[in-house]
């Protein structure tokens, strides 16, 4: 029993939160797209480095593979933390401008949305155990922790894919919620997925981890305890993996476009061609750059740009999916709230910039130094600024808070 477009349009309108949004919708759309890029890149690094870690473990008779397996196990562990925390922002902004789509999709598969949390905990914990056990003399059985961890992470990726995809198909929601008129409130089913789209993101993990390996080799080049041979080995693996990945991406992307509803004419969209051309260009760059040890972080920049183009493409698709239902974020009720808007942007610049900058600089510098790193004058100043900005932030928070609270309480 499908709903007609008019009913769906009305439903989507009334499901929007009546409080409206505190800034222009484009601001949230921009932030959603931008923050999703960092999230998906860490998803890719996690899945890719976990795959390399497990493959390396199977070839650990070779000391380079063994070392790489251990390194990638650690990289995947850290990367999961990052993908989770970086996933919070796009999740938040999605809920701001696409709340009806996201909430309905989640409720219709609620048991899976909740299962996502527990399987992620299980998967991450299993990977942590693999991390502790993946040592040079580890027995072969420990790899099962890794396989289980990766399997759970892949399942979670699939659940997220389904929740996103279902949100684009409001015309089918009633069929899923009340098949043949019988209401099913169990949320126990995953209702729709698009394999081509899911596999595209899996292929992207192959590319991104290849690029990550190239950057990894470049980063450790200056460390005395990392031999040149090992760096070249890692770079070589990265070259091959990235090339295979981008080819897989081009193939799955083509499948995805062919898999799209015909009336959306996705293959005529300029964004489709821009992304396609970029990936072909990137493939050529990777092919001709094989073995070139001077590339540094150039390919990493290309991967970030690719992530950004994919994020925009994904949003273009969503806008197109919603066109028949007259759902556009541009008519979301705006109830401007300047103080809280300032709070966010100042926090992003001040705390994100100085505190985040200090932490990352300290990690970067210390990571490239054998033994103890003593802060340079600049890094020491950055550290002082980070302390100062935190004290200032908390002081302003309490001053505003006490003033507002007293105004209400007295």
């Amino acid at each position, binding site marked *: *029993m499908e709903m007609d477009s008019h009913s769906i349009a009305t439903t989507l309108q009334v499901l929007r939160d009546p409080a409206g949004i505190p800034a222009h919708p484009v601001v949230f759309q921009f932030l959603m797209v931008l923050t999703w890029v960092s999230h998906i890149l860490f998803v890719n690094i996690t899945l890719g480095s976990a795959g390399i870690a497990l493959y390396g473990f199977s070839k650990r008779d070779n000391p380079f593979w063994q070392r790489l397996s251990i390194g990638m196990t650690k990289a995947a562990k850290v990367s999961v933390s990052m993908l989770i925390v970086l996933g919070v922002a796009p999740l938040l902004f999605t809920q701001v401008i696409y709340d009806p789509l996201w909430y309905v999709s989640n409720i219709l598969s609620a048991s899976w949305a*909740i299962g*996502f949390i527990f399987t992620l905990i299980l998967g991450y914990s299993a990977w942590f155990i693999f991390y502790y056990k993946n040592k040079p003399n580890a027995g072969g059985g420990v790899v099962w922790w890794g396989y289980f961890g990766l399997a759970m992470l892949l399942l979670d990726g699939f659940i997220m894919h389904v929740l996103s995809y279902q949100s684009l198909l409001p015309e089918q929601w009633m069929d899923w919620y*009340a098949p043949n008129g*019988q209401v099913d409130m169990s949320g126990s089913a995953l209702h729709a997925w698009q394999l081509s789209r899911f596999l595209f993101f899996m292929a992207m993990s192959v590319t991104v981890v290849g690029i990550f390996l190239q950057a990894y080799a470049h980063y450790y080049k200056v460390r005395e305890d990392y031999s040149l041979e090992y760096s070249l080995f890692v770079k070589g693996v990265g070259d091959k993996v990235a090339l295979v990945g981008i080819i897989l991406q081009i193939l799955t992307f083509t499948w995805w476009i062919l898999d799209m509803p015909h009336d959306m004419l996705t293959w005529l969209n300029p964004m489709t061609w821009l992304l396609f051309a970029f990936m072909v260009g990137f493939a050529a760059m990777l092919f001709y750059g094989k073995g070139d040890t001077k590339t540094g972080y150039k390919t990493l920049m290309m991967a970030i740009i690719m992530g950004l183009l994919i994020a925009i493409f994904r949003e273009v698709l969503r806008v197109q999916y919603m066109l028949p239902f007259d759902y556009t974020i541009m008519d979301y009720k705006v109830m401007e*709230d300047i103080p809280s808007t300032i709070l966010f942007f100042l926090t992003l610049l001040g705390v994100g910039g100085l505190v985040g900058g200090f932490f990352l600089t300290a990690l970067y510098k210390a990571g490239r130094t054998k033994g103890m790193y003593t802060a340079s004058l600049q890094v020491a100043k950055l550290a002082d600024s980070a302390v100062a900005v935190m004290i200032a932030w908390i002081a302003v*928070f309490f001053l505003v808070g006490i003033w507002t609270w007293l105004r209400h309480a007295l």
Partner: protein
Amino acid sequence: MLETLGLYPSWYVPVIGSAWVMGIIGTIHVLSSHTSVGASWLFALLETKAVRENKPELMEYIKKYGVFLLVFSYIIGSITGPGIWYAITVASPKGVGGLIHNFVWVWAAEWVYFTVEVIGVYALVYLIGKVDPKTHLKLTWVFALASWATMLLIVGILSFMMWPGNDSWYQTGSTMDAFFNLNFFAHLGLRTAFMFAIAGAVGGILASTMKNEAVRIEITRFLSKMGLAGVFLGMIMWMWYIQTLPENAKIIMQTQLPGYIAPTLFAVLGATILYFALTAWKPLYLKQSFAWAMTAVIAIAGLWPEERSRESIRKPYVAGQYVYSNQLISRDVPGKQIESNLPMVAQKGILATHPFVPEELKNYTDANRLQAGEFVAKAMCANCHSMEDTGLRPMVKKLHGSTDVAQIKAYLGGALYHGLVPYMPRIPLPEHEQQLVAEYLASLSKENTQTASTKFGSDYIVAKGEQ
């Protein structure tokens, strides 16, 4: 005016209800997140001592606790954080939507802190001994302040869930008025106190494994003092907190909470004070199993009832005393141009206005009127009541097993229609839907009675057969 209400589909969890799913994830998150914030302050204080008194051996403990936190707080805590969002999304979409649309920038600012916090914890743990001590100390203090900032930001939102405390926000719609509500500072004090106590208890799990006896004694005493300070501060803050609660919360606390909750919480409080006093007096008595046990007691017998009570006393609202737990908007909020849903419910009912009612139920017949009643009952009541005979505030028990449709209908059309029960939402169903819901609720007790008699019958037969 649109003739459709902004109601989402329902997710029904038999017996425990979606509220318990939310509560379980919430409790796990509170335990791990408060431990993490409390531990960040412990690290900053201990490291200051280590640098000032030239005691690098204390850093070994910080490293140990930090690695432990990476698993305990930064796996479980960081996953259950978004996990709460997922849980409230599927259990109470209108509630979370209301919070997000009021506080999106606050949450976004908190996300900035989450991100630097996750980078910070790795930096803190892995850079011990790899950067100069002075720089590391600055890093640890920045990390502690940033961690606490995440608490500062979330507490305003949690407090608003209880109530704004006055009329300002309803009139202005300003995020600051909502955030710095009457409940805010007392709630912040309570959680800050708790973070010291729980970090002290969890810290014992690692302190008890320290090989150097002098260091072990010093750290255990430090933890005990911090824990005791947290407990006593918490008691003062609790007294203040109670004064900042709305009337409905006070009534629920006095009349509706299970009887075991208050004595259990007092017992946990007493046990925690004794635990910290003992470990301060005889630090070497502290064994790892003892610290684990204390942590488990605080989590299971302290935190779970406390979180459950906090969820319960907010009823019938989930946010700002304007969103009911059944998704209905209960009042006008002029500052946000929000209008109450209740007039439309009274005029047209749920079946005609809920966007997710199948046609078969919109035009119900004698054959499926029970299903129509079930739909309305679950949409309006299942967020707080189990439709089974056990579990979360079971409807059958609340109605004392009544199978009298007229009697149930009288309640639906009387106290519930007019919102006369302080801890229940006002649900002004039109007469025909009162009838449908009453028939359905009566059928639950009938089923129950039949099941009981059938069960009794079969038990009887088995018993006879055995003789």
